[in-house]
């Protein structure tokens, strides 16, 4: 099958040196941290963007920051590409390797190093899963706010790479708003610490730049994250509508009225059917669109907020309103929503788009999306974070049908262009990866991209870190002569 997305031509010279590279890596790492057998490499040949696969040269799973530094320095010295990897749950191919690359996985670095309640911070290793932070502080009444659907598996390192969001970021923000500091290994093996428990570190906002940089600027090995006091209670309410348009308009009105619920999630009929079949969450089946609106606080607060939201929903002709009556029901409602991708995967292959649009454009983009899908003769299920305009059309197709696969990718590209043209962006929380790399020019001018690539080169002069991602392969700035010699000069000076 021909692939729509191109990979960089692997460096044959690196591949030929594989035996020597493997033996060098073995010297840098303790027993059990190096994977080179083909069958053991297979789990690393893709991530959650499964249409594309490449076998890496080797996989290393270091146990310490110092080991990450040793491997990265070695790879930089020898011009070997490096693919940083968390749990491999990227939906955009951010962790897909290449034949001439060493994968550096942080999965063994999975300890919570410190929990500091008075300063509302936790210091964790990069391989800690997202959910385990909240679990560790739950008994003390705290949580870590960003909650991507993959939170059971995905790592905080990966979250930082993709600036992950989740359903509850309408109120609490995404990873970048909850990240206080990192320890990071630079391309040359030097280890830097940025930020920490003190807010707003001095100088340029390197932390803000690193968050969402998709593993191109360094490898984060530790993070200081914000802990927030858990709300007293939370209550998701289901609102069923006769049309996606009314549901979309209701979202805009809720936000515009001055109420910010903790989450507003949207599902269209196909998504409702898929999720209900999987989770038996009690979603209404006789509606065209569903909103899950979650409010939180004490009972009195939630009542006050819901009263206003219900009033707005009535104005938009809401057909069904269903409040969760117990913690179990509330959990089921979220289980249905958070398993949307998995549940979809049981009935068809799918690709998940991640464009974000201004709230006022929601209805327009939903309509145009279904036109695009019809045009290609495909099916779509829409399930997304409506409160912040972050859309997730799941395009359903049969991966065994090459023509349909290609159509799905083309439909996806059309939808993302639609999002950009509506004043939005290609990706809200999944990252560019390889998936959206070649669409970057639709959102950015050459000057915009060149500026980003120059910044990238300031961190990674040889472009060894996750080199095939984010920036279109054509017209790259390339490695910048001068930077390396300045670095060397800087070292001597230091």
């Amino acid at each position: 099958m021909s692939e729509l997305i191109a990979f960089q031509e692997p460096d044959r010279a690196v591949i030929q040196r594989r035996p020597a590279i493997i033996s060098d890596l073995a010297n840098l790492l303790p027993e059990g941290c190096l994977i080179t057998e083909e069958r053991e490499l297979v789990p690393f040949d893709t991530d959650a963007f499964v249409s594309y696969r490449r076998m890496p040269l080797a996989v290393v799973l270091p146990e310490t920051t110092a080991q990450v530094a040793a491997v990265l320095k070695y790879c930089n010295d020898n011009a070997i590409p490096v693919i940083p990897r968390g749990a491999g749950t990227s939906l955009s191919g951010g962790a897909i390797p290449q034949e001439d690359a060493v994968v550096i996985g942080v999965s063994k670095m999975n300890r919570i190093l410190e929990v500091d309640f008075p300063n509302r911070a936790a210091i964790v290793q990069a391989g800690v899963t997202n959910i385990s932070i909240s679990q560790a502080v739950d008994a003390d009444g705290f949580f870590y706010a960003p909650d991507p659907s993959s939170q059971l598996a995905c790592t905080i390192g990966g979250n930082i790479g993709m600036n992950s969001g989740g359903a509850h970021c309408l109120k609490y923000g995404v990873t970048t708003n909850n990240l206080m500091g990192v320890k990071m290994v630079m391309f040359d093996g030097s280890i830097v610490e940025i930020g920490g428990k003190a807010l707003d570190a001095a100088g340029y906002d390197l932390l803000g730049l690193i968050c969402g940089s998709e593993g191109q600027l360094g490898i984060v090995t530790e993070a200081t994250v914000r802990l927030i006091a858990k709300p007293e209670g939370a209550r998701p309410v289901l609102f069923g509508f006769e049309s996606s348009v009314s549901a979309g308009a209701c979202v805009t009105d809720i936000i515009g009225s001055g109420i910010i619920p903790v989450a507003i999630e949207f599902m269209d009929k196909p998504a409702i059917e898929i999720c209900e079949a999987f989770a038996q969450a009690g979603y209404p089946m006789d509606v065209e669109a569903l909103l899950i609106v979650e409010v939180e606080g004490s009972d009195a607060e939630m009542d006050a907020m819901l009263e206003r939201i219900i009033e707005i929903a009535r104005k938009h002709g809401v057909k069904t309103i269903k409040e969760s009556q117990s913690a179990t029901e509330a959990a089921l409602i979220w289980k249905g929503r958070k398993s949307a991708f998995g549940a979809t995967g049981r009935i068809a292959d799918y690709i998940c788009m991640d464009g974000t649009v201004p709230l006022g454009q929601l209805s327009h983009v939903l309509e145009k999306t279904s036109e695009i899908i019809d045009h290609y003769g495909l099916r779509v299920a829409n399930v997304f974070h409506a409160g912040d305009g972050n859309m997730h059309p799941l395009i359903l197709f049969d991966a065994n049908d090459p023509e349909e696969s290609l159509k799905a990718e083309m439909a996806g590209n059309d939808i993302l262009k639609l999002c950009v043209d509506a004043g939005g962006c290609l990706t809200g929380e999944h990252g560019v990866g390889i998936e959206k790399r070649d669409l970057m020019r639709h959102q950015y001018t050459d000057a915009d991209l060149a500026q980003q690539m120059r910044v990238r080169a300031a961190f990674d002069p040889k472009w060894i870190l996750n080199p095939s991602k984010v920036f279109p392969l054509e017209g790259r700035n390339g490695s910048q002569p001068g930077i390396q010699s300045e670095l060397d000069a800087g070292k001597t000076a230091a």
Partner: protein
Amino acid sequence: MSAVDIQYPETEDEVARLVTEAKASNSSIEVRGGGTRLGLGRPSQSASALSVARLSGITNYDPSELVMAALAGTPLAEIEAALAVNNQMLTFEPMDHRPLLGASGEPTIGGVFAANASGPRRISAGAARDNLLGVRFVNGSGEIVKSGGRVMKNVTGLDLVKLMAGSWGTLGIMSEVTFKVLPRPETAVTIVVSGLNDAEAAEAMAAALAMSVEVSGAAHLPESVIHKFAGGSLKGGPATVLRLEGLKPSVEVRSERLLAEMSRRGTVSVLDGQTSQDLWREIRDVIPFADGTMKPVWKVSVAPSAGHQLVAALRLKTGVDAFYDWQGGLVWLRMEADPEADLVRQYIKAVGGGHATLIRADAATRASVPVFEPQPKPLEALSRRIKDQFDPAGLLNPGRMTAGM
């Protein structure tokens, strides 16, 4: 501040042209908005200045989208007025530096973001940088560049938006900014806990932030400064103040719970309405130290539980007055005489790390003392490489943040 020649471009293209010309003649540019923060940072080393004050006007605002875009020179007052009409606000409460610095002029929205100026709500709503969604700017090569956009969630490429926030005009001249706005809370009240010393106050604030009552401001005003706030109406010794905001019924419930907890720690009282609002503005703008002098004032950021330790240690060595915001993690220090930069920075390290910015000092001091916290060598080298990638000839605000950069 000795720049003689100020240019006022009226379009982004004109900004680009002026930068290109400056590059051709290798002459550096002092970048400014309304000029209210010119006294902050190392003194300008440029012969000519470029003001964005005439790039002015709100360019996109749909209240129901919670987003506004404005040209960089738009007066902050104009933006706040437009938001107020729709019962909205800038949630990060940008500090007005004029009272403290004794400056005049009109703060601009570009200046707010260039300085990453955030106020008391920083601890709950994020900094200016967290609310900036998109920028357009002219880099040091005269190229027009955009980053980010007008949506809340965006991970499309490198986040240059964050980099521009707090870069003090050294990476590019911002021409337009797009930022998040939020509904104004229906009600706000301030719980005052009186009589706590600095250490007790730190514990009380940590306890308040650990409760599920959504504190949106937590400051401690020691005895020495208390008479400067709320028209001298705060009685009963030092005041630890905690702000609650939101829907009325919700604030009522949360106030009760917070009062119950805090009454075990000190004497409690409640401020509301204008009094509460004025108090937080005074904290935001560091009013106790807006004394018409040039006594050095530091803004120190440390872990919240370390703030009072820092102040206690400094008091043994030098004359210093202090109060706390951000749950105790933001320490405002007014030095009696010398800025004592080495001492302040050495003690910050000793209490666990953080950073100090010399917000106010005379020009001679600012030229000789690092105004911004010096970075460790590898990070400083990295910052220099980044600067080079935006402004290879070093034309934009040279030396404003770091000597020789």
